[in-house]
């Protein structure tokens, strides 16, 4: 369902393979044809499901249908803004694959974030409710700092996506990556933290 393998490739998903050799994987997968509604939504839905899965584990220490659905709905803005940002970049130049396939491949590049979520969830499995509610400050720092290499790893993968999947001039992939990140992250942070950070924005201007 969520995997695209060459007949000779290892029996691992695109998510795993793209972690270490994104150029080869994107080059190989972009040769395939296809599209359609399912291809357009399957990996965004996986991301939304994983966000709900993480919310459920974090909030209750278990997976319940109620919390998965609620968490997925709460964080649906993440795949929505990612897709919207990709759509903006996709339309800016020539393209050789369908948008549905581009979305599918682009979202497979979320693998570092998925890995981080699995690690975060594994940590929660071992915590008591009190430890989860009030984690030690050093642990929060580790969790936050661990996002930095994940963001760099993810950017490196996405850079290969823009190089291999969208046929653009040499300097364009970096610009595409920055544009995609600027749109997706600004919208996501604005939606999620907007009301909380607005007083700081206001006071910094006075």
């Amino acid at each position, binding site marked *: 369902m969520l995997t695209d*393998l060459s007949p000779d*490739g290892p029996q691992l998903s695109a998510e795993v393979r793209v972690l270490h050799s994104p150029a080869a994987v994107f080059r190989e997968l972009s040769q395939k044809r296809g599209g359609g509604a399912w291809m357009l939504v399957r990996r965004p839905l996986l991301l939304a499901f994983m966000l709900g899965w993480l919310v459920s584990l974090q909030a209750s220490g278990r997976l*319940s249908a109620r919390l998965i659905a609620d968490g997925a709905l*709460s964080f649906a803005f993440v795949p929505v803004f990612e897709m919207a940002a990709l759509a903006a970049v996709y339309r800016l130049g020539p393209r050789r694959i369908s948008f549905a396939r581009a979305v599918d491949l682009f979202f497979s590049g979320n693998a570092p974030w998925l890995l981080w979520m699995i690690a975060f969830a594994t940590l929660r499995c071992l915590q008591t409710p009190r430890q989860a509610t009030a984690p030690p400050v050093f642990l929060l720092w580790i969790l936050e700092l661990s996002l930095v290499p994940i963001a760099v790893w993810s950017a490196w993968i996405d850079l290969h996506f823009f190089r291999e999947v969208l046929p653009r001039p040499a300097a364009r992939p970096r610009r595409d990556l920055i544009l995609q990140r600027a749109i997706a992250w600004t919208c996501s942070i604005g939606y999620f933290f907007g009301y909380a950070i607005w007083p700081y924005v206001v006071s910094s201007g006075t």
Partner: protein
Amino acid sequence: MSSPRLALFAVLMLAITAGTLADRPRPRPPIVIGGYRVLAVDFHTHSSMWSDGALTPWGLVLEAERQGLDAIAITGHNQVRDGRMGRWFSRLVGGPTVLPGEEILSDKNAYHLIAAGIHRMVSFQQSAARAIDDIHRQGGIAIAAHPFPGSAGYDQAAMQRLDGAEICHPMIYAVESGQRDLERFAARAPVAAIGSSDFHGIGTMGFCRTHVFVGDPSASSGSPRASLIDDTSAQAILDAVRAHRTVVYGRDGQAYGDPALVRLADDDGRLRVAAPSNSRGGWLDWLSRIGGVLGLAGAIALGPRRPRPGG
């Protein structure tokens, strides 16, 4: 789909089924102590609708029910829309009492202030004292939110107006001096003791909670006033906090609040055990989280069955 992948999907489905079966509301028998009805309230929760929480307003209502809470305040960051939505949903499903509220994050980060039981947004561009006056004009109560050192906005004028201050907040478990810091703040003025989880979706809602003593113990049975003991309305809760009729258990089980009510609660003993357990849960919970992590990680990592040569 390959057989190993199919098996891992089955493990994931089993994990979700186990977790859903374990996801039952905690029993919430009415507690009456000394003639007061005692309600478990969390005055500080955030939704995913513009308040960097992880659950929707209606998700917060359902979670409050699961955690045995009688009431919650949904306190959006500088807005009250999600609180109003949560109240509407809770009334629809007969859930816990919802107090629409706001966590006022002041400009220059001078104070964080909970407004519970309000109808419209209170401006963050004013002093804490003026914000509290605005809250009171709307019929709400004002609670100092996690007033750790550095909350410079709580000057004497603000302290005199406050209805309550958080004495139990998750940070008291994470920071060694946290409990002492909140005690020092509460000692500056006569305020109701408040326990709040500042729930954003991580950890347990109501882990820190306030036991609010509502009703009128002097009312004789059969009189109209006696019905007040069954009053779990927002108004009854707000009145009780204004009268400082609260008890909170903090770090190491230390009790805070009205001394007479603390004695009554200690003699009774039920409130101490009403707090959420610190246990990692039963076998269904373990099955759910271990199966959930292994099932999902495996299902994502594995590819489909490799085509047979020549096939």
